[in-house]
Structures are given as structure tokens and as C-alpha cells.
């Protein structure tokens, strides 16, 4: 790119800038992004002089995919509007799903409750107070049948946020699809199944890291062979960011997690160009507009380059990073909750300008509780307004070529690569996690951010500036009744009574044997699910073989 002559910029600084600064100094000494990164006053061609259009930016649909993976951007197909939903009983969530589909939503995304995420049945003593609270309660195939009743799985793609027990929920999903008469080679959808970020950030783990990684790789192998259109992993930076990471840390740790899965898959004998094309990613959309857009663009470029460099791939689908985006739950405030509608709209716009394949917009009441119908509807309408009214979808990567954005994309790529070097030197991401490296980096960033907020350097409207003592806009919130647990426990009891106990015991034994022998556990998991073995029983069988994870103190 052409460089602005230094002579010219010195002239500008002397003739134009300095008199202006003399007349009115800038409001602050330093301007920082939400990641506490310094942002310069002005970006010019000098900031992008080392970039080469063909090599670093290129055309959309071409390596290194900085401008997107589709040559036509959103002119061909809009992103999938996929609202994460789940609460209470499978019956209630099924009704919310049908409502969202009727309102024009184009894909489903299931939120499970904490007992399900941790592999406990609704009747476990550890589940008390938690059933149906943070998502829908699913303890066995019987619940899954109700959850997807009347929703044709061959037509609707479903994303499932489930990690430690992901292989079991995938098995339930496949059996429900089969019972509907859907063919496994026709169905699509996504399993989050990203266990590495659980140890790093979200912390819903069951087994120690290595056997947990083996379960992930089992799903890769199984899906490649039997469910070829399904995405068996969504490598997630979302939770890493929510835990306090900076944008660069989110970028670096997520992509390095992705590389770790590819390495483990290759080590297990899988063909890179068979399974990597079905890997998907999941990023946060936080408040700092340009930093977020640069993050998505850098992510695509790094992934394409690393797949080529590390694994020698030249396969287009392997090199193309596809990702889902969710607006930042952590940025939502309890104070003046309607302000969250505005935050979400701007964050969602960043995701769209970054070229996301699918998007979840948070509801304004999510800092208070799970969303009400009304709040969930406004969140969906926000996406529809961006898609249909703003015009940002009319051209591909509209911000490409901005001096600021391209310089920022490049800077974030370099900083992420610096993290890769550190993690590689530790022996990879599994070792880095065992050493507590990403965990400590994130904790430190979370603390620095909190301090910056308390010093007033980072402004949160309604929290540390423009506060109101009388909160004028009380919003109604969704309350999950304790009766949900009773309802779920009743169905669980019926399931346990109605099934063939011998078949269940037999299936669980076979699963343990497969786990012991390091065979792929998916076929035995599917058989156990078919016999109506519960989630808790299956996870407990695997706990017997693998043990449980204990987090060291960091």
C-alpha cells in the first residue's frame, strides 16, 4: 500500500494538529479500548505500509480469508439468527423454540441447566435448587424426545451448548432424530463440545483433561463417518472473554485450542481435511466496536495460515474459519436494564461487520435472570433490523481497507501469535492449562479491568457514570419455580420404571469396556441412550473409568 510521506504527516502535525491542541487539549491523556489497549489519535497509510493486499487481506472467499469466507458476503445468504434458549422443563423450552421459529428465527440453540451440564440427573442431591434454572433440564432420552417434539430435525439445524457430557447429549439428539425418521447423513447442527475452554474459563468439567479430550476426538471420528454434515465442536472464545480475557487473549486462546483439537485428531489417525472442515468457532461480541471487528478478521487470517503452516492443508474448507457470535453477557447491566438493548445492537453490528455465520443477541434482562418472551423477541428483532434496515449487508466487508481496522487486525494477529509461541513452548494447550497459564492470564485481565472501572477510566453508563438513584424502569423477570424439579424427577422415575433394567446395566458395562479399551465410545453411548440409561448413569460409568478433575489452586 502507498505510504503517506513522513514529510506530509509532520506538516499536518505542525500546521494543523498542534494549533488545535493548543486551543483545546484532548479530553484524556490516553485513549484505551475495553481490553485496555492504547488507541492512537489517527491512523494513516503509514500504519498499513507493511501490509500487502494480495498476501494479507485479499478478496473475500480467498486465502487468507481476512475479508470473509464467502465471495458475496451477506448478499448471498444472511447469517443464521440463532437465539440461545432453554429454561425449565423440556415442555416449556419446546414451546419457546416453536415461538422463536414462528417469529422468523432460522436455527435453534439449546441452553441446558447446570445439572445437565455437569452430568447429574434432576434427582441427584447435587441438583437441588438448580433444575431448570439456567437452561432446560434433560436427564434422559425421554426428556430429549419432549424437547424436540414437533421440530423436524432434518430441516432445522440445532446447536447444543454442552461440553463435559457432550457425547451423551449428541447420542440423545441422534436417537431422537432417528425416531423422527430423519437420516443421520442429512441432519446438521453443532455441538459445543469444547472441553478445553471449560478448564480455562467456564469450568463445567467432569473428567480429567486427557480422557475428556479423548471423548471429544471420539465424536469427531464418529461424526466424520456417520453424521458428515454435523459440526461436532464449536471452539469457544465466548466464555474465555466473559471470564475476563482481553480481545487478544480471547483470540489467541480460542485459536490455540482449535489447533490443539486438530493435533489430537491427527494423532488419533483422522484426516485433517475430513474433520477440520466441520469444526466451527464461537466468539464474543463485546463493547469495543473496532477491536471486535478486527478480532474476527484476524481470527480468519490466523486460522487459514496456521492450518496451512502446521498441518500442510490446502483444502479450502479446512482453511475457512466459520464462526458463531454472541453479544457479551458480561457487558449487560442490572442498572437501567433497557440500556442493554442499545449495547446489544452495537455489539451485534460488530459481529455482522466481522462476517459472522450465525448470531445470538442477548436479551436486555439477562443481567437479572433468564429472558422473558418480550425481551427475547426484541433481541431477535435487533438482528432483523440490522439485516433488513441498516444496509450494512449490501457490500462485502465494508470496513476493509480502513487504516485503523487493518492496522488493528494486523496488531491483534501478531499479539495472538506471540501467545502461540509461549503455549507451543509449554508443549501445547493441554500442558499450558495444566500449568494454569491461560487461567492466570485471564484472572489478571479481569482484575485490571475491574480496577479501571473503579478508577472511572472505563465508563459503564448507568453504573459508574450517568447513574440514577431511583431506577425508573423495573422490568418483569422470568422466575423458574421449584416445581420444575418435581416434574422432572417424576418423569425420571417413570423412565426408570418403564425400561429394561438388564439392558441398561448391559449397555453401561459395554460403555465402560469401550472406555477401558480406548475404543471409540460413541457407539456404546448411543446404545446406552437407546436403552434409556440416564445422563447421570452414563457419566457416572465414565467417571468410574476416567476419574474426576480437581482444579489446582491458581
Amino acid at each position: 500500500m502507498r505510504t503517506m510521506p513522513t514529510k506530509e504527516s509532520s506538516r499536518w502535525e505542525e500546521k494543523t494538529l498542534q494549533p488545535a491542541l493548543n486551543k483545546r487539549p484532548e479530553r484524556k491523556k490516553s485513549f484505551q479500548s475495553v481490553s485496555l489497549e492504547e488507541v492512537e489519535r489517527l491512523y494513516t497509510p503509514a500504519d498499513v505500509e507493511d501490509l500487502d493486499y494480495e498476501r494479507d487481506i485479499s478478496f473475500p472467499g480467498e486465502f487468507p480469508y481476512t475479508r470473509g469466507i464467502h465471495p458475496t458476503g451477506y448478499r448471498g445468504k444472511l447469517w443464521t439468527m440463532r437465539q440461545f434458549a432453554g429454561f425449565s422443563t423440556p415442555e416449556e423450552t419446546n414451546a419457546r423454540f416453536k415461538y422463536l421459529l414462528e417469529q422468523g428465527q432460522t436455527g435453534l440453540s439449546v441452553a441446558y441447566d447446570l445439572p445437565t451440564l455437569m452430568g447429574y440427573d434432576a434427582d441427584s442431591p447435587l441438583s437441588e435448587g438448580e433444575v431448570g434454572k439456567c437452561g432446560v433440564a434433560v436427564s434422559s432420552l425421554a426428556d430429549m424426545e419432549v424437547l424436540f417434539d414437533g421440530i423436524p430435525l432434518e430441516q432445522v439445524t440445532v446447536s447444543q451448548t454442552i461440553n463435559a457430557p457432550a457425547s451423551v447429549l449428541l447420542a440423545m439428539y441422534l436417537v431422537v432424530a432417528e425416531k423422527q425418521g430423519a437420516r443421520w447423513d442429512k441432519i446438521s447442527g453443532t455441538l459445543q463440545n469444547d472441553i478445553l475452554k471449560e478448564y480455562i474459563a467456564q469450568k463445567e468439567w467432569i473428567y480429567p483433561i486427557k480422557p475428556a479430550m479423548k471423548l471429544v476426538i471420539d465424536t469427531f471420528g464418529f461424526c466424520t463417518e456417520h453424521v458428515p454434515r454435523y459440526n461436532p465442536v464449536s471452539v469457544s472464545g465466548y466464555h474465555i472473554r466473559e471470564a475476563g480475557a482481553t480481545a487478544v487473549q480471547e483470540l489467541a486462546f480460542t485459536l490455540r485450542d482449535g489447533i490443539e483439537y486438530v493435533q489430537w485428531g491427527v494423532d488419533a489417525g483422522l484426516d485433517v481435511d475430513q474433520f477440520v472442515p466441520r469444526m466451527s468457532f464461537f466468539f464474543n461480541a463485546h463493547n469495543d466496536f473496532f477491536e471486535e471487528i478486527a478480532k474476527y478478521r484476524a481470527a480468519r487470517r490466523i486460522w487459514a495460515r496456521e492450518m496451512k503452516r502446521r498441518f500442510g492443508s490446502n483444502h479450502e474448507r479446512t482453511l475457512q474459519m466459520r464462526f458463531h457470535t454472541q453479544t457479551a453477557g458480561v457487558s449487560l447491566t442490572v442498572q437501567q436494564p433497557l440500556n442493554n438493548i442499545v449495547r446489544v445492537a452495537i455489539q451485534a453490528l460488530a459481529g455482522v461487520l466481522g462476517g459472522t455465520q450465525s448470531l445470538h443477541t442477548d436479551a436486555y434482562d439477562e443481567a437479572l435472570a433468564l429472558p422473558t418472551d418480550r425481551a427475547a423477541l426484541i433481541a431477535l428483532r435487533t438482528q432483523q433490523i440490522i439485516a433488513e434496515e441498516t444496509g450494512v449487508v449490501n457490500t462485502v466487508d465494508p470496513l476493509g481497507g480502513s487504516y485503523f481496522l487493518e492496522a488493528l487486525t494486523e496488531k491483534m494477529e501478531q499479539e495472538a501469535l506471540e501467545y502461540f509461541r509461549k503455549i507451543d513452548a509449554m508443549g501445547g494447550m493441554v500442558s499450558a492449562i495444566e500449568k494454569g497459564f491461560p487461567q492466570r492470564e485471564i484472572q489478571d485481565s479481569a482484575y485490571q479491568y475491574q480496577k479501571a472501572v473503579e478508577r472511572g477510566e472505563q465508563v459503564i453508563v448507568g453504573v459508574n457514570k450517568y447513574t440514577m438513584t431511583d431506577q425508573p424502569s423495573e422490568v418483569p423477570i422470568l422466575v423458574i419455580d421449584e416445581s420444575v424439579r418435581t416434574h422432572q424427577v417424576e418423569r425420571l422415575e417413570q423412565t426408570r420404571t418403564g425400561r429394561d433394567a438388564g439392558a441398561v446395566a448391559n449397555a453401561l458395562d459395554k460403555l465402560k469396556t469401550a472406555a477401558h479399551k480406548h475404543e471409540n465410545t460413541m457407539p456404546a453411548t448411543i446404545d446406552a441412550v437407546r436403552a434409556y440409561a440416564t445422563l447421570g448413569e452414563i457419566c457416572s460409568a465414565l467417571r468410574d473409568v476416567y476419574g474426576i478433575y480437581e482444579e489446582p489452586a491458581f
Partner: protein
Amino acid sequence: MSNRKIRVLVAKPGLDGHDRGAKVIARALRDAGMEVIYTGLRQTPEMIAAAALQEDVDAVGVSILSGAHNTLCPRIVQLLREKGMDNVLVLVGGIVPQEDLPRLKEQGVAEVFLPGTSTEDIVKFLQANVKPRE
């Protein structure tokens, strides 16, 4: 009156793994000169009460975001009192609806800190409310 430092147990009950808040608070209290013990994740009320007794703390800070606060917090208070820890303050931080605040306080929770609270306010609250020991 001794110069004993304020000792706080930061506790994470329930199944949720969101420990950002707990860890930020733990560090802020340490920076303010208090002694802080963090329980780690997924502690039952029984484990929390036992740790509070063993560590001889002045306050227990309970971090919870899953919606299970109405079940878990009163039980923690009750177990502390049963073990004779009558003066140990129980503070709650996390996502707690406004409507639940009066009941939690009636059941013995000293204060609930909602999202957006400054760590300084929590430090000040502890300094003002922990009962000095003989």
C-alpha cells in the same frame, strides 16, 4: 482489641462455574489487607460451613449466579449458626433479583452485592461490620 486482620472465606456453592467475580473479590480483599481463603468451585453448604469454622473467619462471601441462591444461602447461614459462628457475616454477590433481597436478609444474610458494586464498597462494608474480637 487485637490487630487481627479480617479473615474472609470466599465461597462458591452450587454447580455454576462462573468464578470471575469470586476471584476478583478475593484479590481485592487481599489487596485491602485482609486474609482471604477461596474454597474453589462446587462447595456444598456443609463444606462451606466446615471451612468457615476451620479457618476461623469473620465473614463468608458467597458468590452465586445460577439462581439457586434461595436454596443455598439460607442453609449456609443456618449451618454457621448451628456451629456457633453467630458473629460470622454472610455476604452474597451475584445475580440475585431485587424481589429476593428482603427474604435473604430476613434469613440472616448481612448484605447482598449486586452486579456493578465497587470492590471498595465491599471492603468498606467488611471494615465497618466485622465485629472486633477480644
